[in-house]
C-alpha cells in the first residue's frame, strides 16, 4: 500500500512536470490545420487547373447560383415595357419594380449591386494572386488575367447602367474599396473600355477548354472576339453618355466590325429548330454560359420564362408574361413573334411568354445561356453609324431585319429616324435578353431620340400608368436606388437623386 502511494506520488510529480513543461509546448496545440473544406489561396494559384477553377466558378455563380441572365431580364423587363408582372404580394420588390416605385428602403436591394461587386472582387483577387504566386503557366496566366479583366468590365458595365455613378473597385484591399466614392458614369465606362482593351490583348483568339489553353468549339469562355463584342457595346454607351462623342462611335464601329468580320460568327438562318440562335454553340453565339453540371435545366431563362400554367403571383420566376406593348411592337410577318414567343391558355386566359429558349427543364443539354450574340453587333454598328450620319447604318439594320422576314427598312434615313428604327429593332430582336430594352430607353434620353424612357414610360397613358404606377415627372426612376445600407457603411457613396 505504501509503495503504491509512492508510485502514485511519483506519477503525480511526473504529471506536474509535464504539465508545466507544456507551457512552452502549448503553441503547437493551438496551431490547427486548415479545415477540410478550405484550400489556402497560395495552393490554388500554383497550378493551372485550380487557378482556372477559381476563375470559371465566377461564371457558375453568374449563371446558376444567381441566375443573373433571367433575373436581369425580368427585373428590367417589368421595369420597362416588356413584361407584365402578376406579383400581388405586399412588399416584395417585383411589385414596386413593376410600378416603377422603388425605394431606398433598408430591407430591399434592387438590382445586381451585391452580386456584381462579388464577381468583381473575385476577378480582382485572381488578378492579384496570378501576380503574387508563380506556378501557373504563362499561356494560362494570360488567358485567366484576360478573363478577369473581362469579368471586371462586364459587371461594372451592368452596375453603371443600373445605378449610374458607381464606385469602381479595382483592388481587393478593403481599406480602399470600403471608402470609394461614386465615379461618374462616363469615367466608369472609360474604365470598362480600358479593362476590355487589356483583356483583348491577353485573351486567346480561340475558345479555350478547361485547360485554359487548348482550343474547343464550346463558346463558353471569353476570347478576343468576346472582349471586342463587349467593347463595341461599351464604346456605343460611352458615346451616348459622353455627349455623343464621335470618337467613341467610331471606335464602336471598329470593334463591332472585327466581330462581324470574323468568319467564326454568322447569323443563324433559323430562329427556332435546327441551327437556330439559342442552341448551344450556335454560329451566332459570341459568348454563352456553359450550363454548370449537374443541372436539371438547360438554361435558367427557359426555366423561368416558359409558363406551364397561369403565371404565379410571386412576381419573379414564371410569374410574368409578355406585355401588350411588346406584343404590339412587332411588325406584320415578324418571325420573331411566332418563333420567340410562346403562349399558354389557363383558366380561359392566354398568356404569352418569351420562348427564345425552348427547354423549360431537362438534363439533356441542348441550349446554353446566351450572353453576347452577333445580331447585337450589327445593331451596335448600325446605331453608331446612325449617330455619325453614315448611310450604311441601314445595311446593318437590314441584315437583322431580313433574317426575321420583315423586309428592308423603308423609313427616313436622317439621324433621328435611324436611331428610332434601331431602337425599335433592338426592342423586338433583343427582348428579354439581359435587360437591353431598359438600358436602351435610358440611353435614348442622351441621344435625343424622340422615343426615350420619359416618353415611353411617363407619357399620358404611358407604360407606367398602364402598370398601375405613376411616372409623372419622376425621371429619376431610370436609375435604381443605391442600397441604403452601403451608404450607411460608406458615407462617401452618394444616393441617386430622387431616392
Amino acid at each position, binding site marked *: 500500500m505504501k509503495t503504491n502511494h509512492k508510485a502514485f506520488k511519483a506519477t*503525480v510529480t511526473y*504529471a*506536474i512536470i509535464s*504539465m508545466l513543461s507544456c*507551457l512552452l509546448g*502549448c*503553441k503547437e*496545440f*493551438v*496551431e*490547427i490545420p*486548415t*479545415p477540410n*473544406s478550405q484550400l*489556402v*489561396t497560395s495552393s490554388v494559384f500554383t497550378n493551372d487547373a485550380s487557378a482556372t*477553377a*477559381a476563375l470559371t*466558378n465566377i461564371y*457558375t*455563380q453568374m449563371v446558376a447560383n444567381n441566375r443573373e441572365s433571367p433575373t436581369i431580364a425580368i427585373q428590367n423587363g417589368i421595369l420597362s415595357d416588356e413584361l407584365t408582372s402578376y406579383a*400581388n*404580394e405586399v412588399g416584395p420588390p417585383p411589385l414596386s419594380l413593376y410600378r416603377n*416605385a422603388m*425605394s431606398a*428602403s433598408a*430591407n430591399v436591394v434592387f438590382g445586381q449591386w*451585391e452580386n456584381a*461587386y*462579388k464577381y468583381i472582387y473575385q476577378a480582382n*483577387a485572381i488578378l492579384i494572386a496570378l501576380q503574387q504566386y508563380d506556378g501557373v503557366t504563362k499561356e494560362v496566366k494570360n488567358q485567366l488575367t484576360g478573363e478577369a479583366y473581362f469579368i471586371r468590365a462586364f459587371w461594372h458595365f451592368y452596375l453603371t447602367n443600373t445605378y449610374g455613378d458607381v*464606385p469602381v*473597385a479595382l483592388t481587393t484591399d*478593403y481599406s480602399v*474599396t*470600403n*471608402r470609394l466614392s461614386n465615379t461618374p458614369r462616363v469615367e466608369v465606362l472609360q474604365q470598362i473600355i480600358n479593362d476590355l482593351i487589356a483583356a483583348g490583348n491577353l485573351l486567346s483568339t480561340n475558345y479555350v477548354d*478547361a485547360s485554359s489553353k487548348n482550343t474547343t468549339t*464550346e463558346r*463558353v*469562355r471569353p476570347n478576343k472576339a468576346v472582349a471586342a463584342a463587349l467593347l463595341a457595346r461599351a464604346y456605343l454607351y460611352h458615346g451616348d453618355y459622353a455627349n455623343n462623342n464621335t470618337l467613341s462611335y467610331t471606335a464602336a464601329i471598329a470593334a463591332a466590325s472585327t466581330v462581324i468580320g470574323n468568319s467564326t460568327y454568322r447569323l443563324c438562318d433559323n430562329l427556332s429548330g435546327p441551327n437556330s440562335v439559342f442552341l448551344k454553340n450556335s454560329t451566332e453565339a459570341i459568348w454563352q454560359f*456553359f450550363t*454548370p*453540371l*449537374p443541372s*436539371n435545366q438547360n438554361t435558367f431563362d427557359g426555366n423561368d420564362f416558359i409558363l*406551364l*400554367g397561369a403565371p*404565379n*403571383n410571386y412576381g419573379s420566376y414564371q410569374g410574368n408574361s409578355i406585355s401588350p406593348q411588346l406584343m404590339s411592337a412587332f411588325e406584320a410577318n415578324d418571325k420573331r413573334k411566332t418563333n420567340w414567343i410562346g403562349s399558354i391558355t389557363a383558366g380561359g*386566359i392566354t398568356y404569352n411568354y418569351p420562348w427564345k429558349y425552348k427547354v423549360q*427543364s431537362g438534363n439533356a443539354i441542348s441550349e446554353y445561356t446566351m450572353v453576347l450574340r452577333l445580331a447585337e453587333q450589327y445593331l451596335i454598328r448600325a446605331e453608331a453609324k446612325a449617330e455619325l450620319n453614315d448611310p450604311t447604318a441601314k445595311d446593318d439594320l437590314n441584315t437583322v431585319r431580313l433574317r426575321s422576314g420583315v423586309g428592308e427598312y423603308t423609313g427616313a434615313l436622317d439621324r433621328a429616324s435611324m436611331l428610332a428604327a434601331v431602337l425599335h429593332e433592338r426592342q423586338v430582336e433583343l427582348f428579354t435578353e439581359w435587360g437591353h430594352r431598359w438600358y436602351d430607353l435610358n440611353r435614348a434620353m442622351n441621344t435625343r431620340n424622340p422615343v426615350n424612357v420619359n416618353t415611353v414610360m411617363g407619357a399620358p397613358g404611358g407604360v407606367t400608368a398602364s402598370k*398601375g404606377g405613376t411616372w409623372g415627372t419622376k425621371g429619376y426612376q431610370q436609375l435604381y436606388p443605391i442600397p441604403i445600407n*452601403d451608404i*450607411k*457603411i460608406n*458615407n462617401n*457613396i452618394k*444616393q441617386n437623386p*430622387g431616392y
Partner: protein
Amino acid sequence: MYNFYPNNQGHGVTRRVLCKILLVMKITTILLFTIILHVSATTLGQKITLKENNAPLTDIFNQISNQTGFDFLFTGSDLKNTKRVSINVKNEELSEVLVKIFMGQPLDFTIENKSIVLKEKVSTAFFDDDKFKIAFKQITIRGTIVDSLGNPLPEVFVREKGTQNNVQTDSKGIFLLTLPDPTAVITISHVGFKTREFTAQNIPSTIMLYINITRLREVTINKGYYMEKKALSTGSVSSVSAKEIAQQPVSDPIQALIGRVPGLYIQPQSGISGANSLVRLRGQNSIANGNEPLYIVDGVPYSSTTLTPGQGAFSGALGQGTGFSNQSAGGLSPFNLLNPNNIESIEVLKDADATAIYGSRGANGVILITTKRGRPGNTEVNADFSYGSSKVARFLDLMNTQQYLEMRQQALALDDITTIPSTAYDLNGAWDKNHYTDWQRTLLGGTGNFADAQVSMAGGSENTQFFIGSGFNRQIAVFPGDFADNKVSMNFNLTHSSTDKRFQLTLSGGYTRDNNTLPQADLTSAALTTAPNAPVLYNADGSLNWQVIGGTATFNNPLAYTFRTAQSISNGLISKLALNYRIFDRFTFKVNGGYNRATANQTNITPSTAVAPPNNTNPLIRANQFGNSEFSNWIIEPQFNYNRKIVKGDLNVLVGTTFQNQLSYTTGYRSSGYSSDALLKNPSNASNFQFGGAEDILYRYSAIYARLGYTWEDKYLVNLTARRDGSSRFGDGKQFGNFGSVGIGWVFSKEKFVGNALSWLSFGKLRGSYGVTGNDQITPYQYLSAYSSTSSTYQGLTGLFPIRIPNRVYGWEVNRKLEGGLELGFLEDRINLTAGYYRNRSANQLVGYPLSNVSGFISVQANLPAVLQNAGGEFSLNTTNLRNTKLKWNTTFNLSLQANKLISYPDLQNSSYAQQYIEGKSIFIAQVMNYAGVNPSSGVYQFRAITGEITENPVYPTDQILMPKPVTQDFFGMLTNNFIYKGFELDFSFQFVKQYKPNYFGEYLVLQSAGSFNFNLPVKMAGNTWTGPGSTAEYGRLSTQNEADPGYRVNGSSLVYGDASFIRFKNASLSYTLPKKWQDAMRLKNTRLAIQGQNLFTITNYFGLDPETGSSTLPTLRTIVLRIHTSI
C-alpha cells in the same frame, strides 16, 4: 419605563388585561417588521450591555428593562431566595444575559411576548441532589424552544451530541429528552437557526434560538475552479437555486434565470418552444459579435451556438424554412438539451475577480451550471409531475372586415382607381366581403399543452453517493396542426471517496433527446397581416383552400406553412470525470476531464398539398431539405491545490492548465422531385439533389491559470488570479494572451469598533476588484486566405471560390473590469443588501467589421480601435419580513441599471460606423428622421429638417436626429415574495424592464404600404388616415400601390420607436405540502401539490404584440401547470 407587577394572587384580571395589551403590542411589532423595514434596533436586537458587581436582582431588572423595553413579571415571593449578581457583558443577547443572571438562582425565566416572566425554578433534572446524581446518572431534561420573538419552535431537533439519541419539539416547542449523564452535551439545531449546545445540567427551561446570521453567507459559492465562502468572497457572483428553477414551468434552464440575476438580461427570441434566448450580462461589451457569456456545465464548456443546422451549410435556406429562422427565433436553443430539473444551481460570475481566471473567455461573464448529486443517507426517490397549458396572452387590436374593406376602398379612391382591379380579390367578390376571421386567434390562439414528468433517485453512503434522474417533457405548439416538442432525458452522478478521504472520484453524465416538430414558418406575421375577410382555411375535403380562380390561387393560405413541417431531432450528451487526490495534507492534485456532444438533424418537408396552384403542378415542388449538425468538445484540466495557514490567515493556491478541443460540423442538402407526398421522408425517392455544402470547424484552446487567495482572520481578503491563454481562433503570433485580476475585501463588521458601535449591523463587507479578461468569440480561420469548392462544374472543372477577406493581424479583445461592492446584513441578517457598481471597458474590439458590398464581402474580421464602456449599478435586497412558526415571509428585490458609452473611436468619421455611432454616446442610439405629422394637403408623412423646416423630403443623413433614448434597456429587475404558512408556500415574482424598442410600425413597415391588398392594419389606423386635402389624421395617405416614395422615410423615423417598458407577472407558484400524518400513512415524504404560472400577465404601453419578443414572432406564452412532487 418599566413596571413591576407584583401580584400575590397569581394570575388575575390584571394579567388578562395585560395579555390583551401585549397582543396589541405583538401585532404592532409584526406590523413594524413587515411594513417598515427599517425597524428600530432597540425593539429587536435586544443586545444588553451590563456591568454590575454584587448587585441585587431588581437593579439588574431595571437596567435590562431600560435597555430593552421588556418588562419583568414576578411575584414578590419569587425574589426571596435570590442571590446578588455580578455580571459584565457587552452587547450580548438578552436571553444569553438572562441565562447568566439566573444561572445560580432559584428562579427561571420565560420570555412571553415583551415580558420576562419569572417563576420558581423547576428543576431540570428530577433528582437535583448531587448524591442522587451520582447514583442515578441518567436524567431526563425538559425545555421549551423559542425564537427570538419568543414564539415556540416546533420540530426542532434536540440531540445528544455525537449519538443517535434525539427528539423533536412538539407544536408548543417543548421537548423531553433522556440523557445518560448530567454532563452530557445536547445540541439543538434547526434549519435557518444557529445551533446551540448545553450541558444537560445547565440547560435553561426556555431556550432561545437565533436566526442563523451566517446562513446566507456561510454558503460556499462556486467560482468554477475553486469554491469560496460567500462571506469571504471578493467577487461578484449571483446564484439561482434548484428551488427557484423548479418553481417555473420552463423547459429551457436559461429561461428560468430571467429577472433573477442582477445584471443579467435575458430576452427570449420567441415564444416557440425550444427557441433560443439572447443573453447579455452587464450590457453589450463588443460592438459587433461575441457577446455571449461562457457557459460551463459541471466544469465542461458548453457551446451556446444554436443547434439549428444549415446556417452556411445550405446558404441559410434551412435556417429560413424552419420556424427557427435566424431573424425571428434565433434558432434552436442549445440549452434545451439540459433538463432544468436536474440542475442543482446556476452561478453567474460577473466581475473580473470571478471571471479573469477564465481569461480569454470571461469577458462577457461566466454561467456555471451544476447538476444534482447524491448525498449520504437513506436512498430517496423523488417524483415530480406537471401538467398544464400555454397560451398567447396578448393580441394586437386589428381592423375587422368592415374597417378593413373601408380602408381598402379608400386606398383605391385615393389612387384614382375606379374599377376594382382583377387582383383585388378582397374587394372584387372573389373573397366573401361579409366573411370575418380573427386570424390571430385562429392561427395563434391554440392551447399548447405542457406535460412534464421527472423521476430521480439519490442516496449513498459516507464514501459513495449517487444520483440518477430521468425526465420527460412535452410541449404542444399553439399553432394549428400537430406540432410538439418532446424531450426525454437521463442523467446520473456518482461520487466516491476512499476511506481515508484522500482520493475522490466524481463521474457524471447526461443524455437528452429532443424531438421538436414545428411548422416551417412562424405564423405570427400571417396572423397579423392576413385580410379579415380572407377565405376559409380548408375545403370541405380537408385540403387547403386556395380560393382558386381561373386556375390560380387568390389566397396565400397561411396554413400552407403548417403543411410544411420542420422536424428537428437533437441529441445531447454531457459527461465529466473528476479525480481528486490529496497527496499531502495541504496539497491536492485534481484532474477534470469532460466530453460533450450534441447533434441535430433537421428535415423540412414541402408536400405538394402545401403549394398553391398553379405552382403545385411542378414535379420538382415536392422537396425535403436536410440539415445535420454535430458538435463535440473535450476538455482536460489538471490542477494543484495548496492550502495552509500562515500567521492568522488562510492561504489557498491553485495552479492548473487547460486543454480544450472543440469540433463542429454542419452539412445540408436539398432533395426534390418526389412522385408522391407520402415518399417525402426518404431521400432515396427523390429525383433531384442539391448539395448545400459542409463546414467543419476546429477550435483548440490551451491555458495555464493560477489563483492565490489569502484571508486574514476572515476579515481582510485578497484574491489574485491570472491566466495565460492560447486560442486557435487567432493567427500566427496572435494566439496567446495574458489575463488576471486583483480582488480585495474587508469584512468590517468583524472589526470590534464596528460591532460595538453598530449593533444592528450583522454583516458588512466592502469589496473591490480590477482585472483584465478577454474575448475570442469569433469564427475561426478568419486569418486564413482560402478558397472553398462548390459542387458544380464548369467545363468539367469543380469550382473554387474565395471564402473571406483574410486579415492576419487581429488579436484578443481586451475587457477591463472594475467593480466595487458593498454587502450589508441588518438585524440578524433579516435584511440583506448588496449594492455594486461596475465599469467594463472593452478595447481592441473584435468585430466583423462591416464593409459595403463594394468590397466584395460584407465584413472582415478585425480589431476596432474603439473603447466601449458598460457601467452600471446592481442592487439586491433580501428581507425576512416575517418569521414565526405560522407565517414566513421573504422578499427579494433586485435592480440593475446599465448604461453603455462609446468612449473613443479614433477616426470614426471615416469608418463604416460613421453613420451609426457617436463618440460619447451609447452604441444603441438610433439616428432617425424627425417625424412631424402628416401633410394635410398631400397626405404624405413629414419630417422636421435640421433647419427646423417641415419637409416631405428630408435629406439623409443631415436631417436625422438622435432619438432621446438609446434603443435598449434602461433598467430592469424583479420583485419576488415568498410566503410560507403551515403547509402552504406561495411565491410570486414581478419582472420589470424599462426599455426602448421599435414598435409594430418599426417591424412591419406598414406606413408606406398601408392600403395594399391582403394586409390588415391595427385598428387604431381605422378611420384615422388622410382622406383628402385639408383632412387632419394621424396617419398618411392610403394607397393600394405599395407606394414607396417618399413615405418610406417614415419607416426610419422617430415614429417607429417607442417605449417598450413592461411589468410582467413572471411567475407565481402556490404549493401545499401534505400534512406529515397523511404522508406517513402513505409512506411518502415531501409530498407537495403546486400550481405554477409563468408569464401570467403583462402591464405595458408597448404598441405591438409583446414588449419582449416584438410583433413578428410568437410572443412568450402564458403557461399554467399543476404539479405534484413526492419522495419516498
